[in-house]
């Protein structure tokens, strides 16, 4: 029996070895995020005739571990803007909180011009993208980045489809189809085949756009090791947002896997 209460409940060093405290916060200068921890992979999105479709799978990885399999990475901001988050999940949750307070502030006095309480769209997708780009750029300039790559999908002030991206450095750009992370390599070429430019996106039907995005999600699941076949997909149009958060990839075919050689134990 140990009579020193400070030691009660602590593992004995002679049994378990000295406790490795290296992961604990050290005394010293304040630490900023130097790398993401729990991460979400690609977000893919594309514009069509009268709206935007955006999708992201429901996985949050811890390195190569598929840690959380029911994390929603699409966030509806209002009736005309949806955000897709790639990168660090805790930073995403921080931004989520920030956007909630922004939304409350914006809509407390004026709950939308239509008087309908569900139409809380005083900020359009373009406004939201500008806001986020300033937040992200400020944080990178402070050497304290929010480790995310975000797609902002929705409608602008003229109800035209709007799709733009902002990353941890504050870099922004806009295109008819966008994807973050692995999707920038794998999904973007698929989407660009469907709508190579702005003019093509303006004639694209919703069904074609949704199918292209689903196809891209499928290809990502085939080849991105940190992806999942459960995903969220949102369509933003003038008549509102249609967000589905428990979709399952359909029509998978792993036949191609048989032909892959060189990564396993095959002899031939």
């Amino acid at each position, binding site marked *: 029996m*140990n009579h*020193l209460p*400070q*030691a009660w409940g*602590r*593992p*004995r*060093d*002679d*049994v378990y070895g*000295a*406790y*490795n*405290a*290296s992961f604990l916060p*050290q005394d*010293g*200068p304040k*630490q*900023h*995020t*130097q*790398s993401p921890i729990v991460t979400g992979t690609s977000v893919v999105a594309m514009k069509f005739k009268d709206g935007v479709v955006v999708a992201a799978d429901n996985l949050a990885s811890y390195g190569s571990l598929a840690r959380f399999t029911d994390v929603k990475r699409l966030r509806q901001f209002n009736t005309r803007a949806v955000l897709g988050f790639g990168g660090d999940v805790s930073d995403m949750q921080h931004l989520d909180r920030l956007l909630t307070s922004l939304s409350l502030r914006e809509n407390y006095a004026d709950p939308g011009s239509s008087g309908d309480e569900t139409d809380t769209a005083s900020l359009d997708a373009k406004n939201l993208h500008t806001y986020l*780009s300033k937040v992200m*750029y400020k944080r*990178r*300039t402070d*050497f304290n*980045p929010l480790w995310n790559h975000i797609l902002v999908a929705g409608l602008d002030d003229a109800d035209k489809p709007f799709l733009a*991206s902002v990353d941890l*450095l*504050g*870099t*922004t*750009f*806009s*295109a008819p189809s966008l994807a973050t992370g692995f999707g*920038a*390599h794998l999904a*973007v070429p698929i989407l660009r085949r469907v709508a190579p*430019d*702005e003019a093509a996106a303006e004639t694209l039907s919703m069904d074609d756009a949704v199918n292209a995005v689903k196809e891209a999600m499928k290809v990502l699941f085939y080849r991105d090791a940190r992806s999942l076949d459960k995903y969220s997909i949102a369509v933003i149009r003038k008549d509102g947002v249609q967000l589905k958060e428990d979709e399952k990839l359909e029509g998978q075919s792993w036949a191609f896997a048989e032909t892959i050689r060189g990564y396993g134990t095959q002899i031939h």
Partner: protein
Amino acid sequence: MAFAAPDHGPGYSFTSPTTASAPKQHGFYPYTDNGGSILGISGADFTILAGDTRSTSGYNINSRMAPKLFRIGGEGPDATGARIILGVVGFGADGAALKERLDTIVKIYRYEHGKDMSVKACAQRLSHLLYGKRFFPYYTHAILGGIDEEGKGALYSYDPVGSYEREQCRAGGAAASLIMPFLDNQVNFKNQYVPGSGEGHDLKAREVVPLSRNYVMELVEDAFTSAVERHIEVGDGLQVLVVTENGIEERISPLKQD
């Protein structure tokens, strides 16, 4: 952890200074290169700024339509009444931040003084903006264009920390090293001599004269179509802004997308 470790009996882990590592070094690099190229040429009564519209990250093309040329100091989203143009290449986010700061300054100048800022003043102010971040620079190459107080085309170019100079022509960005020698030869007539004017030191350099607007447009297009062939970060679209005393004209034409 203000607990003292017992000094007898078996050991327990209270503090472990031996395993505590030194503070980790920064793993975050706040810059990136978004590629692209710009160029500016000033003439007798106009200034032309041109830039491609591609934005890149490494080997990826972020967007085929990400303009690098901006109107400075105009009113509203269309920058109505602007007489100054700015081109920025390098790190896109810094470029956007710089453009917005300069735009705000020129707008406030007009609000406070009831007249437009001269290009000369704007040029010096831009230098100060850049030097103000001397120890955490805007990672951009900027070119500023406008019409000076005498009605002549004015062109100023900058390095990332604010060194600046008024010039006849300047190329900046990814393909600057490809375009600038071409401009030296075709705008400033470097290495061009009057035929039959002599040998060696007797050779007379071809006299430099201001070029016509149409001819400059042709030079700009040749410079960019050539740069697109040899530089992977340049392509997709060519945005050209022309400032004259009548205002700013814009033209966007296609470049190769490969």
